Structures are given as C-alpha cells and as structure tokens.
C-alpha cells in the first residue's frame, strides 16, 4: 500500500505508463515534476507541517490548462501550442494544497467535442471515454489519478464523468478562476472537477473555489424532476435515473415535477454562442495557421466567424429567456436542484461517428450535449453522479443542476445517490475494470 506522496506518485506514473496503450489518458506525463513535488510534500510533513487537504493525491490536468514549464498543446496539430511560464490558478491552488500533478491529460481538440478519440473508456476499452475532458476522466476511472481538472463549456466534464462512471462537477460560472486556461467560449467556460466520489470532488472544489459567492440558501431538499427529459433518454438510462430518484425520495428528498425549457432551445443558444466566441478567441491563429487546427475544428471556427453580430445577440437574448424561465422554476417550486440524465445514452463504440438515440442514429455530440447545455447556458452548477449500468455494463450518470453557488447541496445529494444500489454497481464495475487493466498491463 502506498503511504507517502512519493510512493503514491510513483505508482500513479507507473500505472499511467502501463495503461498508455489500452486507455491513453495522458498526452504527456511529468514524472520529474511529480516526484520532486511529492518528495517536497513528504519532507514538509516529516518536518512537522500539516498535510494539505489534497496531500499526495495524484492530479491529472487537462491539456488546455497550463502547468508551468510543460507544453500546453490543446489537442491541436499545432495551433496554440506553447510552454507557459506559470501554472493556471487552479493548478496552483491544487498543488499548494498537496495535490501532485502527474501529467497533461488528453483533450478533444481545443476542448471542442465530446469524444476524445485519443482515449478509451477504462470500463470498456472498446468504448469512448467521452469529452472533451476524456483523458482526465479516464485517468480517474482507471485509478491512475485521484483527482483531475477538466473544463466544461457545454458538458465537457459531465459527459466523460458519466461515461467513465465517476463524479464530475461543472461549477457555478466564475467560482473557480480560469486564469491559465485556454478559452473556448468566454461566457460559458468553466474549470471542471473530476473524482471517483462526491466527497473527494467536494474537497477539491473547496480548495479551488475562490468565489463561492457565500452559501446558497439552505432549506428542505426539494429536487425538481423533468420526467420528459428522463423519458426521452434511452430505456436503460431512463430506468437507472428513475430508480436513483426513487432512492433519493426514500432518503427524505422531496421530488417535484418540473418542465425545463426544451433542450433544443438551450442547445441552440449554446451552439451559436460557442461557435461565435470560439471563432473570436482563435481568430488570429485561424488566419495565420489554419492547418494548425484539424478539419473539424477549423470548420467550426470558420462557421462561427460567419455569424453576424445580430445572430450572436439573438442568442444572448434567448439566453436571458432561458435563465429567467429556469430561475422562475427554482424560485416558484423552491428547488434545491433539478435532476435529468447527464446524457441520453451510454458510451459509444470507439471510432463510431453516431450513436442511437430516439430510435435513430445521430451524431454523438448532438446526443451527448442534449441535457448538459442548459446549465452551461444559465451558468448554474451541475454535477454528474453515477447511478446505474446498462445491459452492456456501461455507466449511466444522473445530472443534478443546482442554484448558483449551490455546490454544497449538490455534493450532499450526489453522496446520497452514491449510497444507492445503482451507483454502487457502477463503482464496483469501475473498480473491477481498473483491476483487470492493471493485472493485464502492469
């Protein structure tokens, strides 16, 4: 059993190297930095310093987030590559609290996509890990990292968390600094957090949240349930989410029916905002180095650049409507959170361009962003927590969308879900898969 930070870091690095082929979570490992930091942390504790709240936890950092002296490559063929002189604020805070950064995790190119083709799902390596923070999620699910940083602009943390059977948080917009994080869409970007369980994710959030905005109002726990959203998911997903909600009700949580704005509205807002803002953020690179982007991202940026100012503003006006409607539901029904499936379907097969949803094959990203777009548009926090397995043994996540700065309540609810049989089955399947991988490849 690894007991020191140094031992734990070395073990994580060994496992990451061994699983490079079957899982491929990392774009680059940073063994020297990790071991040096771990030894310093161990020395400090040996000298009498109190260990930080994240002492010795191996940390994976998505490759759109800066680590000083380590190349940031964004998953692009060349655009935006650089070696930052300073770490991102979130990395600074996590490592100052004792976390040991072990490497840069693969990202879907420019964090613009929900597959992460470089990485496979540790639960079933024939399946995708999801994205865009796929490397970060896979590193945690495979047992390499205890915690990971991702980003979540339109679901990029919640999606791979759901598919890999772990917990993923999109925090309240602005609660965690984005300094040192490559932009995608300024008004939707957040740093996302990933961990195997809600308690560890909450610990990471407490370290990183510099603008917690005070506590959200505490009160009786009332969860709005969008039955339409649950019914619209694939049958296994619907069943697992319904069972988790029944289980929550059994713990004293009051369930209230709510009809959220239809997913296509938030999705349309997100599509226009994201493409327009990404095109603006990367305009110079697109002009000077178009081949530095893959064809899909180049196309997305070009299409975004063709949008008119009026189109962008219409999306922002529609955002105002969506925000008002959701806030109205939360206030009128005095909700702590709203529950939906995180994703309508489980992990697609690696290499597939489409996945079945609603009895037809549809593009993967269009399916996976269906329920994640809403919180991205409104700026609310949202957590994905494992809640069950489908018939193929693939993980299913329940999404809980909270009030702004209501992360604490979300973690409490997520911890309740984790105690239910469906969630425990996911944890068991994930641990068994990680054990199988380690036994075969190390």
């Amino acid at each position, binding site marked *: 059993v690894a007991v020191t930070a140094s031992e734990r870091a070395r073990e994580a690095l060994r496992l990451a190297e061994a699983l490079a082929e079957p899982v491929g979570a990392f774009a680059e490992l940073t063994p020297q930095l990790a071991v040096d930091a771990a030894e310093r942390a161990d020395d400090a504790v040996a000298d009498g310093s109190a260990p930080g709240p994240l002492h010795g936890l191996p940390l994976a950092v998505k490759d759109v987030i800066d680590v000083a002296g380590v190349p940031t490559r964004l998953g692009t063929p060349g655009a935006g590559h650089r070696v930052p002189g300073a770490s991102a604020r979130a990395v600074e805070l996590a490592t100052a609290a004792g976390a040991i950064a072990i490497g840069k995790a693969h990202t879907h190119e420019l964090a613009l996509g929900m597959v992460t*083709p470089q990485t496979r799902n540790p639960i079933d390596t024939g399946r995708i890990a999801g994205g865009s923070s796929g490397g970060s999620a896979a590193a945690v699910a495979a047992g390499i990292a205890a915690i990971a940083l991702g980003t979540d602009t339109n679901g990029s943390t919640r999606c791979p968390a759901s598919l890999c059977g772990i917990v993923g948080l999109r925090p309240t917009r602005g609660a965690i600094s984005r300094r040192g994080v490559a932009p995608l869409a300024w008004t939707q970007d957040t740093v996302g957090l990933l961990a195997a369980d809600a308690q560890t994710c909450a610990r990471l959030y407490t370290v990183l949240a510099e603008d917690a905005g005070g506590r959200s109002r505490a009160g009786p726990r009332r969860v709005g349930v969008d039955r339409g959203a649950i019914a619209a998911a694939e049958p296994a997903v619907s069943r697992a989410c319904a069972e988790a909600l029944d289980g929550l009700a059994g713990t004293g949580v009051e369930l209230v029916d709510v009809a959220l704005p239809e997913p296509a509205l938030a999705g349309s807002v997100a599509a226009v905002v994201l493409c327009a803002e990404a095109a603006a953020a990367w305009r110079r690179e697109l002009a000077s180095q178009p081949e530095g982007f893959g064809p899909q991202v180049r196309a997305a940026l070009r299409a975004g650049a063709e949008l008119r100012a009026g189109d962008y503003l219409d999306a922002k006006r529609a955002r105002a409507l969506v925000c008002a409607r959701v806030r109205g539901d939360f206030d009128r029904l005095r909700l702590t959170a709203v529950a939906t499936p995180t994703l309508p379907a489980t992990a697609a097969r690696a290499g597939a361009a489409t996945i079945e949803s609603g009895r037809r094959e549809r593009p993967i990203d269009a399916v996976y962003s269906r329920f994640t777009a809403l919180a991205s548009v409104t700026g609310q926090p949202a957590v994905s927590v494992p809640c069950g397995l489908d018939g193929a043994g693939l993980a299913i996540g329940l999404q809980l969308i909270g009030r702004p700065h209501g992360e604490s309540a979300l973690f409490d609810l997520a911890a309740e879900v984790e105690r239910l049989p469906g969630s425990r089955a996911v944890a068991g399947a994930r641990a068994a898969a990680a054990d199988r991988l380690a036994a075969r490849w190390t």
Partner: protein
Amino acid sequence: VTDSPQPSGEPGADPDPGAPGPDYEAALAAYRTMLERALERLSAEPLEGVEPALEPELWR
C-alpha cells in the same frame, strides 16, 4: 473535434448537423447547417423587448 471522424463538435445540441466525415468542406457545410437551424430555433422565441444577457445572470 480533432481530425477524427466525429461530427459536429460540442455545439451540436439538438440542431442536428448531420454526420460529416473528416473532410473540411463537409464539416463546414454541416456546421453552417447546424447554426442555421439553431438560429431558426431561436427565431421562434418571443425575443421582442428582451435585452441580451451577455453573461449568465447568477441569482440566489
């Protein structure tokens, strides 16, 4: 979205862009279609008199 055969990128959402291959021109056409559909969807909303929320409003 890299150079994988994956479709629409994260903006996908409900305005289904189809499933382009890795080809740039096909991807560009798909993104244009997706955005057109998104704008059509937005035009169905009663936006008269609504001021744009440039950033999400965080409430309590």
